[in-house]
């Protein structure tokens, strides 16, 4: 079928979304063009490219891009394509060039800002329209690049809201991440775990703020971790702090309903109230003392008592500020999605504080995850289920009409409200039907 604006609008209702939104390759193509080519996409952290010549490749929408650091210290985002014959300029995932980016095909050379440095056989262009050093010899840049507190974003659209206007209140993800550092900034741990889900990208978002699934999907891990945690406590008096990352899934459903999702314009959504990570062990107290020296008592309490578990920057980013972790969602096909999982260090905090969150990176966000294993399995089954003719609609009515409206923001009264899905699909419709 061909999707005009009316057909696309008809895919989403206030309480349900049509299954084709997840499964139809035509809709996926339109999403690439109207959503992923327009929004601000997370490229990487500037500390991934510490010194001039460093680069890291990334996919934005359908486009192979490179984040580079130029001689003047500026971070650039370029199309990974030689302006001569179109060869990819960078063939590996990340690395460093000595003096220039050299195309492996005919040795055209470029500076890390994309400007041409040397073009061999220059005489060959005498009498042609190619102006050596002119725009046709530049590596194309992402139309817009912005850096907020070290987090680099690019947009493939020439115009649109600024990064901060686009983020709106979801900006708190990066403020919380950086403010938790006594030095006010973070540094990337230069390892990226990559996991592919065999399903549409939207299942990831649907699941992130769905607190009702946790006790169901993760019962096995929650129970296993609780059993061993109890044994270790009995044996040694206490269990390692990070067992809680797994054992928390045994909390009764009523406890999950006490959490809140805060649903902002643009599809950005925040989960508050899970795992208040402010333990009072010596390591944590030492960290709090360092924070108080930097920020003072009141501001420190304000920063550390902000209990945000996930921030979704719609459509492609999930950030966990108290754990300093970030997942970037890169749709590859209608039924294939890459997640990139990153961890950051709080500058000015002790190594022990980094280790506190490392257990979460290893046990929840690594490829050996005992948590996402069951989520990914659900995503795949959801995708295959929606491809069936057993029904046409995905229902998201739970606690519909019972959330609290605060201007343009919807705060849930019940944690298990499906408000985040309703919020995502409002944004989805806005993107898919705008300006057409």
């Amino acid at each position, binding site marked *: 079928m061909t999707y005009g604006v009316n057909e696309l609008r008809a895919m989403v209702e206030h309480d349900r979304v049509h299954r084709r939104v997840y499964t139809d390759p035509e809709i996926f193509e339109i999403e690439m063009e109207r959503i992923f080519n327009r929004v601000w996409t997370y490229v990487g952290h500037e500390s991934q490219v510490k010194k001039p010549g460093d680069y890291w490749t990334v996919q934005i929408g359908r486009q192979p891009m490179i984040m580079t650091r130029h001689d003047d210290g500026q971070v650039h985002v370029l199309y990974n394509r030689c302006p001569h014959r179109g060869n990819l300029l960078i063939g590996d995932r990340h690395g460093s060039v000595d003096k220039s980016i050299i195309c492996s095909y005919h040795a055209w050379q470029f500076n890390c800002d994309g400007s041409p440095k040397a073009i061999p056989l220059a005489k060959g262009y005498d009498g042609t329209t190619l102006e050596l050093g002119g725009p046709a010899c530049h590596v194309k840049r992402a139309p817009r690049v912005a850096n907020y507190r070290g987090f680099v974003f690019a947009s493939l659209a020439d115009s649109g809201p600024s990064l901060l206007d686009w983020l709106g209140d979801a900006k708190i993800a990066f403020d919380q991440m950086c403010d938790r550092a006594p030095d006010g900034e973070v540094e990337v741990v230069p*390892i990226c*775990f*990559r996991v592919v889900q065999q399903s549409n990208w939207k299942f990831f978002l649907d699941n992130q703020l769905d607190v009702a699934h946790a006790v169901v*999907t993760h019962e*096995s891990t929650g129970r296993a971790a609780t059993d061993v945690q109890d044994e270790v406590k009995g044996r040694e008096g206490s269990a390692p702090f990070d067992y809680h990352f797994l054992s928390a899934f045994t909390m009764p459903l009523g406890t999950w309903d006490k959490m809140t999702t805060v649903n902002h314009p643009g599809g950005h959504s925040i989960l508050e109230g899970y795992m208040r990570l402010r333990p009072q062990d010596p390591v944590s107290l030492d960290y709090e003392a360092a924070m108080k020296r930097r920020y003072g008592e009141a501001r420190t309490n304000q920063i550390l008592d902000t209990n945000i578990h996930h921030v979704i920057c719609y459509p492609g980013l999930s950030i966990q500020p108290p754990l300093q972790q970030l997942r970037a969602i890169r749709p590859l096909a209608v039924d294939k999605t890459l997640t990139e999982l990153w961890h950051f260090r709080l500058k000015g905090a002790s190594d022990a504080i980094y280790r506190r969150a490392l257990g979460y990176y290893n046990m929840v966000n*690594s490829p*050996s995850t005992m948590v996402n*294993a069951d989520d990914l*399995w659900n995503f795949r089954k959801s995708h295959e289920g929606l491809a069936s003719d057993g029904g046409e609609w995905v229902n998201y009515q739970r606690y519909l009409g019972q959330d609290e409206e605060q201007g343009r923001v919807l705060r849930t009264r019940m944690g298990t409200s499906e408000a985040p899905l309703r919020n995502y699909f409002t944004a989805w419709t806005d993107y898919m039907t705008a300006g057409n």
Partner: protein
Amino acid sequence: MLTIAPPLPLAGPADAPLAIAAVSGDVQRAVELLLYRQADALDTKRWPDFIDLFAPDGVYWMPALPGQTTGDGEPSIFYEDRDLMRIRMKRLGHPRAWSQKTEWATNHVVSNVIVERHDAASGAVACRARFHMMEFRRDAVRHFAGSYIHHLVRTADGYRIKLQRVDMVNGEGPYEYVLQAWV
């Protein structure tokens, strides 16, 4: 924040030059049998047997990057003492471990077993081997291959694993789905 004893000094990262210790045929054979028993425990999903091959302070470690020399305070794909291993085992065996509700099987082949260091007094061994694992899961095949480094201690019950380091050649690649059991 694992509370495990620091591992023995490593034989080095996976690409360190090979050392070959002069050991008797009996030692070589006993080391090989331990590796084969371990592979068999994985392929037959006898998880308690797999865990029991580790010493009480034994650690199973799969580094995130080949150059890492410790999992302590570093990102790892696996970094598990026996307690964490038991969480994984109990999860796999739980009746509502949903992702276990589909058939899956593995086949490990372990080869190129070389004893690199052998302490004649204590009987401790550091050895290196190569493995190839094929997994079949819900109509799809995946392959994982790489090197094992085992640090073994000699006990009354035979060798036990103090440290197992697993470096997969495709460890840094994108994972189509995840690893639910040890490799």
